[in-house]
């Protein structure tokens, strides 16, 4: 099952088992709901934005190991990034899933745990799982008032 091991990296399973930033903010936050209609996965993503920066993020939802671990990693990664930087990362992630990002780009971006999700690109049926949380983040940041 070597190719399966490419998909289910230990880091991924770690995020799946012990999701970071799982929960909701008591007070207000930018909230985005998104689902994957073909499979029933759904996510609620909340982000705190201050002075053009994502200061905190949390998520709740239901889904497979790939979608939930990806949400966990994404919320970790965007904390502290400017809106612009977060959107840039979403774009890179999307291209990484399609196999269109160069090695250089990926290295330069210093993605940390997220790099483990690269294996998903070899499983076309699962790419949508990985991108769900990122799509939610993109939607939220693009539609926010400022």
């Amino acid at each position, binding site marked *: *099952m070597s*190719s*399966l091991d490419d*998909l*289910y990296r*230990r880091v991924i*399973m770690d995020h799946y*088992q012990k999701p970071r930033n799982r929960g909701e903010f008591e007070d207000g936050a930018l909230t985005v709901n998104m689902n994957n209609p*073909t*499979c*029933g*996965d*759904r996510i609620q993503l909340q982000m705190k934005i201050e002075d053009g920066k994502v200061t905190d993020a949390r998520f709740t939802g*239901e*889904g*497979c*190991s*790939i979608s939930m671990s990806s949400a966990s990693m994404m919320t970790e990664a965007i904390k502290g990034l400017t809106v612009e930087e977060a959107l840039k990362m979403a774009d890179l992630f999307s291209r990484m899933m399609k196999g269109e990002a160069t090695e250089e780009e990926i290295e330069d971006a210093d993605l940390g745990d997220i790099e483990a999700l690269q294996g998903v690109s070899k*499983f076309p*049926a*699962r790419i949508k*799982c990985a991108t769900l949380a990122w799509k939610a983040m993109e939607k939220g940041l693009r539609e926010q008032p400022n």
Partner: protein
Amino acid sequence: MNAKEIRKLFPILNQKVNGHRLVYLDSAATSQKPIQVIEAIDRYYREYNSNVHRGVHTLGTLATDKYEGAREKVRKFINAKETAEVIFTRGTTTSLNFVAQGYARNFIGEGDEIVITQAEHHSNFIPWQQIAKKTGATLKFIPLAEDGSITVEAAEQTITPKTKLVAMGYVSNVLGSINPIKEVAKIVHRYGGVMVVDGAQAAPHLKVDVQDLDCDFFAFSGHKMAGATGIGVLYGKRYLLEKMEPIEYGGEMIDFVELYDSTWKELPWKFEGGTPIIAGAIGLGAAIDFIESIGIDEIREHEKKLVDYAMERLSEIKGLKIYGPKQRSGLVTFTMEEAHPHDIATVLDAEGIAIRAGHHCCQPLMKWLNVSSTARASFYLYNTEEDIDALVQGLIKTKEYFGNVFSG
């Protein structure tokens, strides 16, 4: 019947997927096609491709004969009274929407009731939900029994003199339950309503006799019964179809066209506007010949044995939960403690085993089951016990794989 021999008639099954013998357990989504069907469609395009009911040339006549011959095969297959009651459509979804738009929308109004269940496929759910919204009719649900099946008693308690239409799946694509259509139809008729049946999961797997069921409309898809995609059937009782307006206007369906009005062809062509799905219908005819050469009752018996065996083997796996009643059609829907349905499907796929994971177009039912997604293995005449053994092996592997990851 000998499933191992039958399997050889399906070219697609003779291949390796991800290095393993293909084990196709997704026939409830779409069935595979035997060589007889593929060749019938191929022959139409190679030898007599022509439009039907137009012109007088030789090929056109041949195509028309074959197309109308397929209609007669369908009529016999479901025991409709006459071919006028057999309309070719694009599939179950289109057939049900025809009934919703052509019948329900015109003959149902405020104060009336439409009765369905929470176990319906979206294509037998949304049309009624939307018609109820548009007409002001009340949408009601027959409560499901604990195992998800529908009892005659529950139907009796839900259907009232105000009920103008009941729509129900014959066989659930998630639970495998086989619903008491004939008994429910009796109740509906007592109050003067009509019975609409979603037969998508029934027609491929068990004997359907629309006169014996006494249903008013019956919808099914060719692609789930060894035919091509894009062809399906709407059966309707003549007096109801006569009452209905055409749904699609255009060529083929008219009698006389005047400047300010037109008249329609007789049944069933009134409902077949435009160039029909000729190759698909001919393929469906071939699929019916194929099924009848084996025997629908034999197919049902074979699937019964398979599903009993599958239920027994799967219940040996700890942490695996099966949904639906014990008495069922040839499919098993389940979840596993260790792995999400998508993850199960991905691990099985690496072993060459194709199953379905997701909500199976039944979000309201998923809600009722209190799950967001399930895994489903579904069988047809070409499946064998060997396939189920492979599934069980694959699931044990999945369990170990995810179990290890978690404990490591």
